């Protein structure tokens, strides 16, 4: 089976034309990117607002977590049944697919963003207001940078789920890597199915690596604990002695 799959993957015929791997991968990437962008456009501002103001936390607790329980395939079929009669062209299937995937992507990003803001050290937030930052400045200069690690983990989780689930677009006769899985099943071409699954997994891993790279660049080292060592510093990143110690000596001077 593995041999057959490798044979399928290495067959030049499968890498050309409108149903070749490059085209299918591109379709898959486009579906995923559009979905992720829409999900973030909804979830990030909402998460920031809820976390910053503390209002509407029930949205996170109730709706966002409730959404996770919905079966995406069921949603897709439902949306197609509702929307397709309203729209005549190709979009009749594209929009339901994207909406179903957005519903999948919103909860992790929303929860991550909200939790990130909520978990900011209360003393740091208090100090931010205390030194004279406006609410907006506190959000952008303190809360958001401190929330980034959790926001990224939400984003990564959403990305993995969306890429894996975007295969269902093929179910309603759209493209993407899901085609190989759906078509393979229809024709009992199991090597093709397996090849499709492997391609989806590779794509998901690559996307995760890419986001991890971005995360590494954007998140402050003060939050991750990956401190840069300068030549003057000892290897240990612990507290430096010094500064303290000279005071109070006279009082305690032993005699």
């Amino acid at each position: 089976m593995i041999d057959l799959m490798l044979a399928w993957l290495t067959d030049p015929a499968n890498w050309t034309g409108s149903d070749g791997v490059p085209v299918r991968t591109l379709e898959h990437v486009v579906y995923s990117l559009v979905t992720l962008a829409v999900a973030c456009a909804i979830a990030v501002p909402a998460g920031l607002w809820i976390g910053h103001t503390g209002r509407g936390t029930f949205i996170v607790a109730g709706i966002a977590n409730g959404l996770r329980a919905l079966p995406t395939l069921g949603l897709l079929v439902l949306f197609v049944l509702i929307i397709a009669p309203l729209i005549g062209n190709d979009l009749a299937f594209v929009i339901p697919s994207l909406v179903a995937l957005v519903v999948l992507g919103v909860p992790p990003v929303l929860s991550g963003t909200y939790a990130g803001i909520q978990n900011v050290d209360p003393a740091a937030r208090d100090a931010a207001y205390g030194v004279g930052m406006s609410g907006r400045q506190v959000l952008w200069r303190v809360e958001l940078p401190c929330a980034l690690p959790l926001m990224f983990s939400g984003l990564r989780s959403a990305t993995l789920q969306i890429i894996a689930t975007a295969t269902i677009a093929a179910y309603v006769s759209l493209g993407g890597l899901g085609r190989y899985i759906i078509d393979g099943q229809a024709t009992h071409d199991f090597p093709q199915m397996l090849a499709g699954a492997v391609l989806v997994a590779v794509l998901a891993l690559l996307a995760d690596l890419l986001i991890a790279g971005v995360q590494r660049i954007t998140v402050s080292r003060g939050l991750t604990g990956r401190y840069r060592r300068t030549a003057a510093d000892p290897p240990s990143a612990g507290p430096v002695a010094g500064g303290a110690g000279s005071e109070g000596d006279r009082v305690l001077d032993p005699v």
Partner: protein
Amino acid sequence: MIEFKSVTKRYPDGTVAVDALSLTAPTGQITVLVGPSGCGKTTSLRMINRMIELSSGQILIDGTDTAGQDAATLRRGIGYVIQHAGLFPHRTIVDNIATVPMLVGWGRTRARERAYELLERVGLDRRLARRYPAQLSGGQQQRVGVARALAVDPPILLMDEPFSAVDPIVREELQTELMRLQAELDKTIVFVTHDIDEAIRIGDQVAVMRQGGLLAQLAPPAELLAHPHDDFVADFVGRDRGYRALAFSNAQLPALREERTVRLGAALDGDRSGAGDDWLLVVDDAQRPQGWLDLRAGHRDAAADHLELGGTTACRDGSLRSLLDAALSSPAGRGVVIDDTGRLLGTVTAREVLALIEAERERPTSSAGSTEPLEKSTPG
């Protein structure tokens, strides 16, 4: 000068956190708000920079009502130091300190320069500048917190239990450091603590507050110890207040007795004992006391290993408290008195200090509070 005029904070559920508080924090002095949990001391402090809005009354800063000003602008002109420092974890130390200069629109270069200057001013190594808060100890973080508050040189500093989360030794260092800074900077400081010892040590005046946000007594530390206004204050300032009050009285030093000394590391000849005294004071080359040597132990030399290190020293211009403590803590029963440079002046016994205290009590004019608390002007 900060004036509270009948300031009340009442929460929607009816709780009164601060009740008709009127007090003045004079310019260039440290006013300490002290009291048990729930007495409204932190609420009072936070109403000054409007982190909490007052329900009724007025707070005036140099005659101007704070209520009429934009809250964020008001806060930028007031230094704010809190418990656990509250540093921004994603910013380096130097950028933490430069926060307010950047907010008020200094350029980055100038803000950083100022931050480096302040880093040294609060006694930290410049090498720490590029580190992150998580890499610093609690005491170091708190120093950075003070530096951040001082960045645009605000005339007022609000400090909300700034030293209560660090261990006692570091706390004492930070207190000493604050008093040293205050001697240089002359800020108007309002300081909240639940620790009466801290209040007495650093305060020019102390406001004792009680449950329900009521002011129990406002007085200089010495007066608070000598004349507590009521049972609550008396209880709060504690049992050994008589002893602690000695920290605020200075007396003419008695005639100090000359002490036989030996250089550190010198050999001992046999005939030193037998003079009716078993203890010998060991000094270094600069006549600075190093420790007591027990002659009964039969050591042949005055090596550092043989010294009893238990005693404290008193400064020539120190308080009666430090003098008495030196005498009581000395293994020889004689307290060591030194001058400003640490050189030995002589010794004094507890009996002599007590006689001094008795004499001080009988002097009719020496009411507590009038004496200058000298111990505070000679930190470190």
